[in-house]
Each structure stands twice: as C-alpha cells, then as structure tokens.
C-alpha cells in the first residue's frame, strides 16, 4: 500500500496554492508540501499539483512564463515517467503551454472574467482522477477565469474524443470552450488539466464538497498501486 505524498507547486502569482494544500492536508489527510518554482527537486512527491492563480501576472500568455521555471523540467520528467500531475485553472494553462496536454486556453468568448459555480458532467469515470464519480454524474464546481476557452484543432479534438481523454464537460458552456470541454487527461492518463476548481468545493463548511471525489480518486489510485 503506497502512501500519498502531494507536492503543490508555488509560482509567483499562484493564489490557490493554499486552498489545495488545505484540502489535501487537512481534509484528505495526505502528506502535503509546497514546492517553490525555483526548486529542481520534487522531494519524493508522487502527486504533483499545479494550482490556480496568475503565475507571473499572466504576462505574455497565461502559463507561458511558468513553463520555464526550473521545477517544470522536473514536473515534465515526472509526468513523462507516468507520475500523476493535476493542473487546476492556471495549472491547466501551464500544462497546455508545456505540451503535457494538447490545445490552448483562449480569452473567454464574451471577454468577461467568469466567477461562479457551474455544472459539470463526468464524461469518463475510468480514470485515476474520476473513479469515485459515476459516469454522466453532474457535479457543481466553481470556475474563476478570464482565459478558460479551450481550443484545439479538429484532429486533436477527434483524438481527445476517440481516446476518452475528455473527463469533464460543461453542461452550460460558460466560456466558449470547444465541445464544452472543462477538463482533459493526456493520452497516458496520468495528467489532468481542468479549469474548474475542485479544491473550492471540498470542504463541507463551504456548502459544497462535490469536488472532493476528484482528490479521493487520485488518493485511491496511489494507495492501490
């Protein structure tokens, strides 16, 4: 039985790092540490989280500068060896910029920053990130982004659908994302990026804990390995 050791990467401008740390450490009771972006050591973490926020002020493009932080070389190596990586919001943008996930996140179609709770549909529950959900289950999770409009070309979209890489879709698309995509995994099924914030829906005291099963799924998959 393996033990979960989660590492939450902190970039200058990350602002959901403490939220996800709190959920992992105090609600899921998992060993959790922060990893400063200038470090080149994942410190034996076996789950890496790239949190939400505005890394490097979102200058140039969201996630474009974070991609070159020293820790990202290690995260890419870790992911390519099958390590579990979860990118939330800005973390999803960073994963797309690094090429660990296909596509890109554009400005929201209506140009507004959207901050509200949306309904997602779990499109695939045979993944290490969604195994605790039911297929087609609808869950309410908050979004908070200005650039969450997922874009990819036709071939990539065909691949995402054919390989069951789309894990979450918006029931009522808030931002213009192609094919209502809210979250995708990579072909090797060890990297997930999603725009909604499950860490903001994991503590009952906040009135909604429907995001908790995402973390529970990841923990179960590590423990069973």
């Amino acid at each position, binding site marked *: 039985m393996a033990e979960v050791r989660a590492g939450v990467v902190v970039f200058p401008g990350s602002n959901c790092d403490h939220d996800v740390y709190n959920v992992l450490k105090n609600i899921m009771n998992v060993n959790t540490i922060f990893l400063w972006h200038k470090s080149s050591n994942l410190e034996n973490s076996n789950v890496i989280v790239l949190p939400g926020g505005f890394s490097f002020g979102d200058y*140039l*493009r969201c996630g*474009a*500068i974070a991609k*070159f932080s020293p820790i990202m070389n290690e995260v890419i190596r870790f992911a390519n060896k099958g390590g579990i990586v979860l990118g939330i919001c800005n973390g999803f943008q960073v994963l*797309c*910029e690094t090429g660990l996930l*296909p*596509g*890109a996140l*554009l*400005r*929201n*179609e*209506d*140009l507004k920053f959207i901050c509200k709770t949306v309904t997602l549909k779990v499109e695939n529950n045979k993944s290490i990130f969604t195994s605790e959900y039911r297929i087609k289950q609808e869950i309410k999770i908050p979004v908070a982004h200005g650039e969450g409009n997922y*874009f*990819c*070309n036709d071939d990539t979209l065909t691949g995402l659908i054919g390989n069951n890489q789309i894990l979450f879709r918006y029931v009522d698309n808030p931002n*213009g994302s192609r094919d209502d995509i809210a979250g995708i995994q990579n072909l090797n099924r060890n990297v997930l990026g999603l725009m909604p914030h499950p860490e903001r829906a994991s503590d009952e005291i906040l009135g909604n804990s429907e995001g908790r099963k995402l973390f529970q799924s990841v923990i179960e998959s590590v423990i069973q390995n």
Partner: protein
Amino acid sequence: MYTAKIHVSIRKTILDPQGKAVEHSLKSLGFDSIEDTRIGKFIELKINAKSKEEAQRITEEACRKLLANPVMEDFEFRVFDEGEING
C-alpha cells in the same frame, strides 16, 4: 545592435472576441467601411548580434520558444539595423 519588431496575432481561423468587440464599437462610430478588426501583440527586441541574419535567427527562435504559442497564434517580424531605426 539590431531591433526586431514582432507582431503576434491569434490565428485567422480562430475567433478573436476582442477584435470583434472593437469592430462593433468602430461600426457604431460610423466606420462602415471597416470590415474586420483583429487585435494582437507588438513586441520589440534589442539584439546584440554579429549580423542581421543572426538577429533574425534569434528572433525566430524566441518567437517559437516563448513569444508565440503555435497552437493558437501566428507571428511575423522584421529586423532593422541601427541605421534603419535612427535614419
């Protein structure tokens, strides 16, 4: 010293909502002849290189690695030597 002037724009096939919003505003001001508006970024680099060709190569590499994302953006640039900039 060379100067590179770079334009990065969202690919033509992708909707540019910012451009569309500005276009509507231009139309409402009476600019009926403006048919399309697209908004991009302008980036200027000062490059210490041995030749214009080298400066162009560096600019191209910088665009590919960081300044533009080929998934959604196109870029074009021109490199000027000091005479062209100051003259």
